[in-house]
């Protein structure tokens, strides 16, 4: 899933300065699961904003709303009827959701309440880790299911750098060396011979380097 983290409160306050009626819009997708942008978080943020603005003597009216997904036109249309009542949307979706809202509603200010941080999963409740960099050309077959692009700090494709120490990355002793994990997995699978295969220079066109990406299911385009 896409992981997001709420922006610092002061930054959010600054963004909505000058707006008197706003919608705080949650998303029922990934950010609900990672506990940063769903229904409950909309309520909390809205209360905090009301209190802070009251204290400043500049009260703000807030419509609280959460839709199924902010990255899907079907659900985005659901807020249209409420828009005449507000002059800005504070979206608690990931960056994709914010973009979709902005593209859909011209003339309406749309601000991000979250920083979209990475694609990953939860190790346990409230503990999220990055696992994919969406490079567009999955190499996990060669690396025993552990991604060197997302998990090696240098995205090295042919093995660990000289800074791998006791299973940890040179940048932080809390960060696992991705290549140590790969080697451990290859060994456990009896596939160590794969390590010596030369991984040729990568074609980054499938990554964002090839420009913004799209995926089209032709069979659905009729």
């Amino acid at each position, binding site marked *: 899933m896409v992981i997001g983290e709420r922006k610092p409160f002061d930054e959010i306050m600054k963004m909505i300065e000058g707006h008197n009626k706003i919608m705080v819009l949650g998303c029922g997708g990934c950010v609900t699961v990672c506990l940063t942008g769903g229904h409950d978080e909309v309520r909390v943020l809205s209360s905090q904003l009301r209190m802070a603005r009251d204290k400043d003597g500049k009260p703000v009216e807030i419509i609280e709303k959460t839709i199924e997904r902010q990255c899907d036109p079907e659900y985005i249309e659901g807020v249209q009827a409420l828009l005449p009542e507000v002059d800005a949307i504070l979206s608690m979706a990931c960056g994709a959701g914010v973009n979709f809202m902005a593209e859909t509603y011209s003339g309406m200010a749309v601000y991000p309440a979250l920083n979209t941080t990475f694609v990953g999963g939860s190790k346990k409740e409230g503990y999220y880790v990055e696992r994919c960099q969406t490079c567009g050309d999955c190499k996990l077959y060669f690396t025993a299911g552990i991604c060197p692009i997302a998990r090696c*700090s*240098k*995205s*090295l*494709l*042919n*093995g*660990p*750098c*000289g*800074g*791998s*120490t*006791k*299973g940890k990355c*040179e*940048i*932080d002793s809390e960060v696992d*060396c991705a*290549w*140590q994990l790969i*080697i*451990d997995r290859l060994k456990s699978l009896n596939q160590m011979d794969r*390590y*010596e295969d*030369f*991984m*040729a*220079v*990568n074609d*980054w066109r499938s990554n964002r380097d090839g420009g913004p990406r799209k995926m089209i299911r032709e069979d659905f385009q009729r």
Partner: protein
Amino acid sequence: MSEEYKSGSKLEKVLRAGQFAVTGECGPPRGADPEVIKKKCALLKDKADAFNITDNQTSVVRMSSIASSVIMMQEGMEPVMQMVCRDRNRIAIQSDILGGAALGVKNMLCLSGDHQKFGDHPQSKNVFDLDSIQLIHTVKKMRDEHKFLGGDEIKGAPKLFIGAAENPFADPFEIRVPRLAKKVAAGVDFIQTQCIFNLPKFEEWMKQVVDRGLHEKVYILGGVTPFKSFGMAKYMANNVPGMDVPEELLKRMKDTPKEKQAEEGINIAVETCFKLKEMKGVAGVHLMAIEWEEKVGEIAQKAGFLPRPQL
């Protein structure tokens, strides 16, 4: 290895002649004053066959490796131009290789590069379009096939002696020799190792290298760094990733009176040089006296490496 020189560099000639090679290192300044390099060059001249010019080492901005290499050549010395993958994509890398070769650079060292987290611009974006092994492959393709990575022909291919680094002390240890084998397969000509303090571990690595016959396909230069003080030894042991300083060496430095520690550091370095010279498969040493260039000559002298052969 074929009869014709790949680059014609002095380093290549020394190694091909079967002489025990010596390389040194020179870090460019954090400013535009060429005199700093010239001063370091004066200290290092004739003390080794070629000298690495580091490329923004530890991710701290310095004068470029290419420019510093040219200044060194103007002083009548041979540089090993280092190039890291951290700061350039394949377009810039190949362009700089052509530029360096056009200006007379004959040796190049292919490195991944320290993570920018360690430097003075931790906010920067890193590149790593290629990794160090892919960089070796790129230089070899340019040199031997006269082709760019993209496949187009190069008119006037760069003649470079291709080097790389290897750290026998990093983890996981069991892939350190396979990793060297990958570099050899990619086309590396010489290797400079990480600073060797743990000689038994280095010997173990070297034995695996020899068992696989890799020492016959690549020249291996053992890395030697003198401790300036017990403080430096302790810092290297605890704060430098991938460094292996055994307890007994730390103790030896600690037990030496402060005013004699520098001398003891030199002694240890010289002893390491002697051991490396005797070790099967080792083709030379790489003397890295970090910000202590004036000591390179002393170590080389005491280790019996001077005068350097004139080839």
